[in-house]
């Protein structure tokens, strides 16, 4: 992991102190609400229905055990429902006492959120975060957000180059950039260094892909203008190959063009995707002209030197771990023989939650935070503490927050897999459902979010409850189910094989269902938004709709065909027919 220098550490402390000054002025009334708002947003404080939401930055998802422990402390000591005014009407939504608190929440952008910390305690939380190099810098607001990447970065067997040194260099470059603090809208960058895109890069404002040209030189393919929201757009490739050392100069050109020309008159048209779509080639020409000027007139000041890349890369040298694979195999075989029940569960866990590694002695293990009784991606203080311990004992003190809202342990020795499995199972974090239906992506939804039209969490629970049977889950195979409570798409419904979108009609919760969306992985095909299958469904109908879609898949599939492949082969019609057949209240409404 990247280790903070004195400069980095001081920077984070200064940021916390700067925030405390801003908060104090706001509390004293000398800083107005409107003026304080973007300042708190750029420190991660976003006010929701009952309380502020804090989004803590986890740069490219990498987090250490001491950092996880501080996140646990914040969950335990600060994320308190009762410190907020919960008397506000929550008509039609979940009863407040049922909402989770004292927990952190893993997000699709590899960050961690809290839902109940009052602003009056926010500066104290920032100090606590700063004690372990954490912060909320640029996790909200109209600025360059946390750089995300592949959760398997630096360990994936299909990797061209490790994206983490570049993600770190980009983190530094984008942190408190003076020119780009007030962009037209938020700006998200994702990098992948592998052949398989596990970072959904085409869906980002900037999607970077590390590749090698015919001479073996390393560079980036640059996509710009992807995004979800009410206008889902896949980013366009504006550079097929950019030498690695030019990435900062090139991004400066991209963001400057956006800052100057992006729309500021309409929040729904302010993302760079709208500019890229409207301008087409003219946008690319503008960026290329600006890039040339940065090189020729400014002297390319942000060219990354080999020395700097080497300095940063040195932090990402893999921990020296190895094991006796014969003994590992023996231990695994021992468990597999131990008991029929263990046998099945352990082998499923090996299959779904354990991934191969560049080091043949090691494995990447995903702890599942998708289980009945807890919101997808939620981790209690206790679970965060225990996860910190697991990372320490089994993964060189490092974990990764994944895009799918789980926690991955990147450095697990083969011979420790049985032990880790037992520990994780004891903690309820060994559900062998990674990549399967119940490993869904979901936003916090209407229970917490002011923007949401409908709730996500009760729906997620209904699915988790209905599909508890592991035989059935494994039989259904790999399916991306994504749930967003509104069109802002925090739950990535556009990219789900099955996408659920909360919509508002007459103050009631309704859900639109889409099919065939893709995040751009090989399983899912080229990145594309799903297509709506018909009029929206009532909340009570949605679990039955999902079941009908899955039953249709099972009836239609041939051999080992996946859900998405069956859908591509048959088209959406059989699925639509099945979904419409389970309408009850919406059928009555239409009659």
């Amino acid at each position: 992991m990247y280790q903070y220098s004195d400069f980095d550490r001081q920077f984070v402390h200064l940021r916390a102190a700067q925030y405390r000054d801003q908060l104090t002025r706001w509390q004293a009334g000398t800083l107005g609400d409107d003026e304080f708002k973007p300042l708190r947003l750029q420190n991660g404080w976003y006010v929701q229905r009952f309380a502020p939401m804090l989004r803590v930055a986890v740069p490219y998802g990498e987090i250490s055990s001491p950092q996880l422990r501080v996140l646990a402390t914040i969950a335990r000591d600060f994320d308190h429902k009762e410190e907020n005014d919960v008397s506000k009407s929550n008509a039609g939504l979940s009863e407040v006492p049922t909402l989770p608190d004292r927990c952190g929440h893993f997000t699709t952008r590899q960050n961690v959120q809290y839902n109940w910390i009052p602003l009056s305690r926010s500066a104290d939380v920032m100090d606590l975060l700063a004690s372990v190099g954490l912060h909320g810098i640029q996790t909200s607001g109209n600025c360059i957000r946390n750089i995300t990447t592949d959760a398997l970065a630096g360990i994936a067997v299909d990797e061209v180059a490790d994206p983490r040194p570049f993600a770190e260099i980009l983190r530094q470059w984008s942190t408190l950039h003076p020119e780009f603090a007030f962009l037209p809208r938020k700006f998200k960058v994702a990098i992948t260094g592998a052949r398989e895109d596990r970072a959904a890069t085409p869906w980002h404002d900037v999607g970077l892909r590390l590749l090698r040209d015919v001479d073996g030189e390393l560079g980036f393919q640059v996509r710009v203008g992807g995004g979800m929201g009410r206008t889902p757009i896949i980013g366009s490739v504006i550079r097929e190959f950019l030498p690695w050392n030019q990435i900062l100069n090139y991004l400066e050109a991209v963001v400057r063009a956006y800052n100057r020309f992006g729309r500021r008159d309409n929040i729904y048209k302010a993302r760079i995707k709208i500019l890229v779509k409207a301008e087409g080639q003219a946008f690319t020409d503008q960026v290329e002209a600006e890039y040339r000027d940065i090189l020729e007139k400014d002297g390319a000041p942000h060219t990354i030197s080999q020395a700097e890349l080497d300095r940063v890369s040195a932090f990402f040298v893999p921990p020296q771990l190895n094991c006796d694979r014969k003994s590992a195999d023996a231990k695994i075989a021992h468990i597999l023989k131990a008991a029929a029940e263990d046998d099945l569960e352990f082998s499923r866990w090996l299959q779904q939650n354990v991934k191969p590694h560049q080091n043949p002695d090691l494995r990447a293990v995903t702890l599942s935070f998708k289980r009945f009784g807890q919101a997808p991606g939620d981790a209690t203080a206790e679970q965060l503490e225990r996860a910190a311990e697991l990372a320490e004992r089994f993964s060189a003190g490092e974990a990764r927050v994944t895009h799918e809202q789980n926690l991955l342990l990147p450095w697990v020795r083969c011979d420790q897999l049985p032990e880790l499995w037992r520990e994780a199972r004891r903690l309820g974090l060994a559900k062998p459902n990674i990549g399967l239906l119940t490993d869904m992506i979901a936003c916090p939804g209407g229970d917490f979010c002011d923007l949401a039209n409908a709730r996500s969490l009760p729906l997620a629970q209904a699915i988790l409850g209905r599909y508890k049977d592991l035989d059935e889950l494994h039989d259904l195979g790999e399916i991306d189910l994504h749930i967003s409570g509104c069109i802002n798409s925090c739950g990535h419904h556009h990219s789900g094989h099955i996408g659920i979108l909360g919509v508002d009609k007459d103050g009631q919760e309704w859900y639109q269902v889409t099919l065939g969306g893709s995040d751009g992985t090989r399983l899912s095909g080229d990145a594309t938004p799903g297509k709506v299958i018909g009029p929206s469904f009532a909340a009570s109908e949605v679990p039955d709709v999902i079941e009908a879609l899955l039953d249709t898949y099972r009836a239609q599939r041939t051999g080992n065909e996946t859900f998405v492949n069956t859908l591509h082969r048959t088209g959406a019609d059989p699925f639509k027919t099945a979904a419409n057949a389970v309408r009850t209240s919406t059928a009555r409404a239409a009659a």
Partner: protein
Amino acid sequence: MSQNNLQLFSADTFAATEAEAQRLAIANDADPREADLSGISVVELHFPKFSDGRAFSQAFLLRRRLGFTGQIRATGDVLIDQLVQMQRSGFSQAVLRADQNLAHGEALLKHYPAFYQGDAVHTAPHFAAAA
């Protein structure tokens, strides 16, 4: 950070000293590279709202790209919490909105000793400057 310190003025006491012919106001949607800067000693860039960041890019282009050596003055919705960005983007003067505390603004300008990325004033990024 001693060089090119941003000069702060309060809106209610500020009076321009330059002749009007030497001052040029550039609109937010204009490209400063197309402006005729001959005889101009002060360029004014306006913040219609403090959260409208276009003038930062305009200041950068003027100072860094064009090498403009006169004053670059921030006007409009100029708040003390954006002064650091202004100074680093190439502004040399800021006329603060009337309700702003100028002394506190001076203090905020000194809060960070250095930054990661290069800017219009200190052109080299931290990694190159520290190397």
